[in-house]
């Protein structure tokens, strides 16, 4: 290893530094992935499409649609509300407010799982503090829209974090230039600001969708099986409170989930590059 690093010359062994990561990845990510795909296409010990077919029928299909619908609603609402909040924060003159909101967003965006469910159960649950005050009907929290309200608690902060740098990158000169050329505020937003921000917003939507789509702990603690969600179905198929052969159904459902998440992510990655071109 006495060679300097000047050029990636043939015979240089410097690339070996990447080997541990690649080997680790192949073992810890590759093996379960292969097992999952293989299991999804195996029924009673031989290759078959039966699991996949079953994972797209009846209750499983309902759960998948429920998950996609919940994630889409949370992503859209979270993106709109989060962008407004981020804009209000970024344009605020108070550094204190700005720092406080951004720090709080950092904390809340990482606050999920079971504790989040407990928080909301104490607030709007059947014996919750606020639900008693406003006379909320029993069980209101344990519904589709209840889950939306709870998921927004980490989705909005996530969107604020995703949008703040992009909004910071909007230069006042652009607005001045637009105003100087006789553009109205609407025209500025429609033709200048939104096109620049669009990739960041869409990227945020995808991020929120992914977070809501894969959330399991919160939903499990809150609704159990009241609201059909695909993560809950996979967990119940895995934990073996059903028949033995259902493990492969869980793998097939997992494969479905990965495909949906993969399709959504496929939108995100090219967008991310486009955003960074304008906002630096």
């Amino acid at each position, binding site marked *: 290893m006495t060679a300097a690093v000047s050029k990636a010359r043939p015979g240089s062994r410097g690339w070996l530094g990447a080997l541990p990561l690649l080997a680790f990845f192949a073992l810890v990510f590759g093996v379960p992935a292969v097992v999952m795909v293989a299991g999804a296409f195996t029924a009673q010990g031989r290759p078959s499409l039966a699991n996949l077919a079953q994972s797209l029928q009846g209750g499983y299909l309902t759960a998948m649609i429920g998950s996609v619908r919940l994630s889409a609603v949370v992503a859209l609402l979270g993106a709109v509300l989060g962008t407004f909040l981020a804009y209000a924060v970024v*344009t605020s003159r108070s550094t204190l407010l700005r720092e406080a909101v951004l720090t709080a967003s950092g904390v809340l965006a990482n606050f999920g799982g079971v504790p989040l469910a407990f928080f909301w159960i104490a*607030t709007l649950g059947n014996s919750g503090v*606020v639900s008693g005050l406003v006379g909320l009907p029993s069980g209101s929290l344990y519904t589709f829209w209840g889950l939306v309200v709870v998921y927004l608690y980490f989705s909005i902060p996530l969107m604020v974090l995703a949008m703040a740098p992009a909004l910071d990158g909007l230069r006042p000169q652009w607005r001045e230039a637009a105003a100087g050329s006789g553009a109205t505020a609407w025209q500025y937003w429609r033709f200048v600001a939104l096109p620049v921000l669009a990739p960041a917003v869409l990227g945020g939507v995808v991020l929120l969708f992914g977070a809501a789509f894969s959330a399991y702990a919160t939903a499990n603690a809150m609704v159990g099986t009241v609201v059909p969600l695909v993560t809950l179905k996979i967990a119940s198929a895995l934990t073996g409170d059903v028949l033995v052969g259902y493990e492969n159904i869980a793998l097939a459902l997992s494969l479905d989930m990965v495909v949906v998440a993969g399709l959504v992510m496929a939108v995100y990655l090219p967008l991310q590059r486009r955003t960074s071109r304008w906002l630096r």
Partner: protein
Amino acid sequence: MAALTGLERVSGAARPAARPRRAWWRAAVFLPAALYFLVPLGTAFWYTVHSPATGVSLSAYGELLTADGFARSLSLSLGLALATIVLVLALALPAMLAVRLFAPRLRPVMEVLCTLPLVVPPITFVAGIGTALRGGTDLLAPTPFWATLIAAQDPAFPVVLVLAYVVLVLPFVYRSLDAGLRTMDVRTLVEAARNLGASWPYVLARVIVPNLRPALAGASFLTLALVLGEYTVAALLGYEPFAVWIVTVSGSKGQLSVAVSILSLLLIWLLLLAVSTVFGKSRGEKRK
């Protein structure tokens, strides 16, 4: 107008005329947001300290701190988080440097690999891991590797969880480190240090790492927060770190479960605070 370029962060100052009109608009955003985010916080706290039978008391918190398994599960979670941070940085940093310096053609491969885990929700990942572990135990039973596999699943310190967490945080760590490496001229720095006779470990410890401090801090915080709050993988593989213990211990005790939730929120906040204080200096420098 070019003279304004340095001021884009205080963009509001450049448009004084628009200010009075925007004041109510901002209030209309902040008030509902404050209500939505602060009311659950307040009510959750009220719920833990007040009960109609006993009035106001902090007994829920006392009960929590003395509950069986609190110290064990929290220390397990912290241990897992620490091991995950060390392992993920030890794997990712050399790999990213090697690809940058010696094998630029591998870079798209790295990028795709390090993004893949984002596409895999934890619950599907654990479905794969669980099946692979069961299959692997059967397959490896006649070989010495069997013992390794069993040892990796020791409930006292499940190495399997560390491995799984490394995969789950890899995308975030990769992006954080990649952003950090972009801000410095890695090649020149490394060449200069090597020409002056520095060894590779010395280059890493005294040249690369100090320049990467904010990125490393960000990566560490994300890893800590993810591991401490991670429930899905641990619960479905049957381990009991902090996030799983919370559920077990609270069971039917409402006050206790909410108290523990407040505690975990505080924990995340303290961690974020600690990370930004420890690494705050370099962040402040960047601001200027």
